[in-house]
């Protein structure tokens, strides 16, 4: 989460710098120069700039490969003939220990219950990615909506949103997440509910990141000429916000979204690792690390495999986020 705070500062600072630069350039040339906004017209430029960034493209390719690997989970199950929850006690060594990697029929070996690690890794990735993506979309939706409202309407609405943000930021996040998750699971005892609770928890404790960034940007945007012109034309606020403000906010939201996916995968994994996330039978990278933690000294691959997927995904989304940021800010 903490890398996000930095990111937030960067985005805010970068935006302010660009605005200042834009205004200065405008004053010098006497013409209208836009700031750092990648509006719909310049998305093509962003794409060209991004395509030149080898590291960024590499991260995107890696992320694509991970997603394809997870989507192909049923294919792995069909090819190996091992269903995701198939517990085959013949797939253990003679003394009842999990099989190591490159065993016959089990490319990555088996876990303590004789389940195929490769198949579970792919299915687990689906769960982890689904939760992280849903949580990210929910976070961005809530954050962008409230941020735009607060920044555009100002007044009491802004005061309320800002105060709520300040209080939420003062919460010891993980402690509350643990409490909410465990009590929630007792109220709604099902695997799907556990996943939904994780999404709600993540959204509750991260909506303020996009909200703060968007609010700050909208506060400066609403003073710009084209917004004032739109208001002068008598367009309703709803239209101005949706059609004129939103497109300018989206690039930063996209960058933030990329970071958030990686962070949220980590949050799900952390909660599952502590035993308060998904139930242990449900495969996710977090629950796999959790169940590996009791046997990792003798069977380290059980932790290395999901751990490596987790780290690779986080790293890819981080790099992708910073490359997108560079492409958008024309550095």
């Amino acid at each position, binding site marked *: 989460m903490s*890398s996000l705070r930095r990111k937030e500062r960067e985005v805010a600072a970068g935006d302010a710098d660009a605005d200042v630069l834009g205004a200065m350039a405008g004053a010098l040339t006497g013409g209208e120069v836009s700031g750092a906004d990648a509006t719909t017209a310049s998305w093509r430029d962003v794409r060209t700039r991004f395509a030149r960034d080898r590291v960024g493209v590499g991260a995107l390719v890696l992320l694509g490969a991970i997603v394809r690997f997870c989507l192909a989970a049923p294919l792995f199950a069909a090819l190996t003939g091992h269903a995701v929850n198939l517990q085959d006690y013949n797939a253990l060594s003679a003394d009842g220990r999990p099989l190591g990697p490159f065993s016959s029929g089990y490319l990555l070996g088996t876990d303590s219950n004789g389940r195929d690690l490769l198949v579970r890794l792919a299915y687990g990735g689906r769960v982890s990615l689904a939760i992280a993506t849903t949580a990210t979309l929910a976070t961005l939706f809530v954050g962008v909506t409230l941020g735009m409202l607060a920044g555009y309407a100002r007044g009491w609405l802004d005061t309320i949103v800002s105060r709520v943000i300040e209080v939420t930021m003062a919460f010891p996040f993980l402690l509350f997440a643990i409490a909410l998750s465990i009590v929630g699971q007792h109220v709604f005892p099902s695997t799907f509910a556990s996943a939904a609770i994780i999404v709600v928890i993540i959204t509750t404790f991260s909506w303020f990141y996009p909200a703060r960034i968007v609010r700050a940007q909208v506060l400066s945007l609403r003073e710009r000429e084209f917004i004032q012109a739109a208001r002068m034309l008598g367009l309703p606020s709803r239209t101005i916000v949706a059609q004129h403000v939103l497109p300018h906010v989206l690039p930063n939201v996209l960058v933030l979204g990329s970071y958030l996916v990686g962070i949220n995968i980590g949050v799900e994994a952390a909660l599952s690792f502590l035993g308060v996330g998904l139930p242990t039978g449900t495969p996710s990278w977090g629950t796999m690390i959790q169940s590996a933690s009791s046997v990792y000294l003798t069977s380290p691959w059980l932790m290395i495999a999901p751990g490596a997927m*987790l780290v690779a995904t986080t790293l890819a989304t981080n790099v992708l986020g910073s490359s997108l940021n560079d492409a958008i800010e024309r550095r």
Partner: protein
Amino acid sequence: MIAFLLKRVAWAIGVVLVLTFITYLIFFPGLRAAGLDPARLATNKTSTPQTVANARKFLGLDHPWTYQYGTFLLRLVRGPSPLEQEVSSGQADRLGFSFRNRLGVGHLVVSRFAVTLGLVLGAAVLWLGFAVFFGVAAALRPRGWIDRACSVFTGALAGVPVYLIGFTLLYLVAYVPTTGSFLGLHFGSFTLLPLVGYSSLRLSDPWPWAQHLILPWIALALAMVTLYFRLMRAEMLSALDQDYVRTARAKGLDERQIALRHALRNALPPVATLFGLDFGILLGGVVLVETVFGIPGLGSLALTSVLNLDVPTATGVIFFAGVLVVVVNLAVDVLQALLDPRVRYA
């Protein structure tokens, strides 16, 4: 300054009130919705019906949950009531009474916090030391080899969760030496560091304590260092770019003095702010590290009490953690206001 201080303190108290209110909202109506009995959960399975009845009385379960929140606040201000004293055989304190541990919650929390403090302080020395030393070194020679090496090192750590760092350290440093072989290489097996556990600090012989904490210190420090290194480097770079540094150079001061006296002094406050802002995140890291290494600190107390739905302990720990976060933030704010008058009037 006094007005600023009063405003910040009032705000801090407000935040703590909201925080505990929500904690109570989660635990009392939440557990009722799940059809669970907090009194039974707060006691051990082997407890007598008398103890359960005492717990019910202590928690005020015959009343609505707002009453329970009210008694919590009242107890905080006035200390435990005679009834609470009687039910807990005089053990209850301002934070309540943990029936499972047969200790006052305040007492329990403070003793566990001492353990956590040792963990956090040791780790903080490591990561702040690294960040300041190498942050300055990297900023003095941008794109030099120190800068590149540190950027690669911290960048690689950025995406790795603290518990994976912990397990890796345990495996490589504590476990591998005892096996006598690694990657086909054989050597005489020996014990370098203990695998899990904790030994409390004795000033006459701190080694057993330190021995158990070396790996947790490193793990927590590695998890925190990236952000601090990057911030330190960036702040130092921008400080070195300021006019007063140019003036100092023009005066003929040597680079060493400029870097340490002029630039570093201005680069440090943002690092302190980050420490305040990230304190809540640090507590989260503490929960994970204590779980991996089996350290009986505040984090593991929080985790076990919440997992067991031990309401009196859990609410006490969360209250304490909330106060800790707010107080650290307040301290950083006040410190900054003292150092920088602009903050006071912002």
